[in-house]
């Protein structure tokens, strides 16, 4: 795996510049049920296709951003600040 990602602040870099934060998994709003809590903590959609996910420019500006990536091809459709 060595695709390119475009950091919204710094521009295009090798993927090794970044830390992967996983698919966007919103935190429940208030007092979730036990099931909701476990879903949030332990389950992911793991889609084969386009997914919104967190990335951290660990070697650069050290900012988090959101990417839309096709998990089957590693094509990055877009990146944006949260």
């Amino acid at each position: 795996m060595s695709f390119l990602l475009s950091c919204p602040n710094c521009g295009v870099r090798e993927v090794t510049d970044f830390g992967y934060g996983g698919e966007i998994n919103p935190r429940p709003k208030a007092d979730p049920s036990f099931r909701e809590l476990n879903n949030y903590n332990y389950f992911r959609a793991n889609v084969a296709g386009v997914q919104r996910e967190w990335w951290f420019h660990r070697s650069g500006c050290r900012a988090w951003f959101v990417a839309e990536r096709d998990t089957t091809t590693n094509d990055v459709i877009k990146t944006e600040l949260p």
Partner: protein
Amino acid sequence: MSTLEFLAPVAAGEDVVARSPMEALARDAGARFEVRDGFNVAISYPAASYGETVSWCDTSHLPKLQLQGSSKAIDGAAGIKLQAGTALRRDGAWWCRLTNERALVIGARPSELPDDVDVIDVTSVFASLTVSGPLARECFARFCALDLRPAVTPVQALRPGSIGRQPGTLIREADERYLILFGWAVAEYMWSVVADAAGHLGGGPIGVDQLSERNMSHQSTPNTDA
């Protein structure tokens, strides 16, 4: 003292000297030192002449300030619109926007900064090397994946990114001159990385007095109200 004064490597006492994390390496390589503004600086190496290849110079003594605030407040402090990806030279310092809310000033401590930016002295958070010479780009190619081709990285380009597998920031100061910032604690490692690559290309270390000023042909930046 004010709350954040203790973060700046500015000595309170007279006999206290600030030191670069690469001082021991510079000494082993034959550097001559001089204390300047409280910092022990490697000013020259007797054997240095790497004009045809590549040289590196420990510039960790350069003052570095981090500005935090709204995008507008940061532009206000700079007196000019700061764009990510481009470093602007003003008052003896590089002004570098890293994110909408964060910028670095490298090379000088501006005397007056507005209250709406939060200023933190990060001089000893980042060590730095200035790599220069005709083979500087070849040297970086040995340990850095940044695209430094002139068309992609023109003079004054600002490139935060991995350098020697460590978080870093690169500024192309002039045609053949690059300033790189990296963590203070990885400085010894970074010196060994640069020395390995540059040494193999026939280069060596130089002192700050040997850093050719003619290389530093940065464009003056117009003071606009942008």
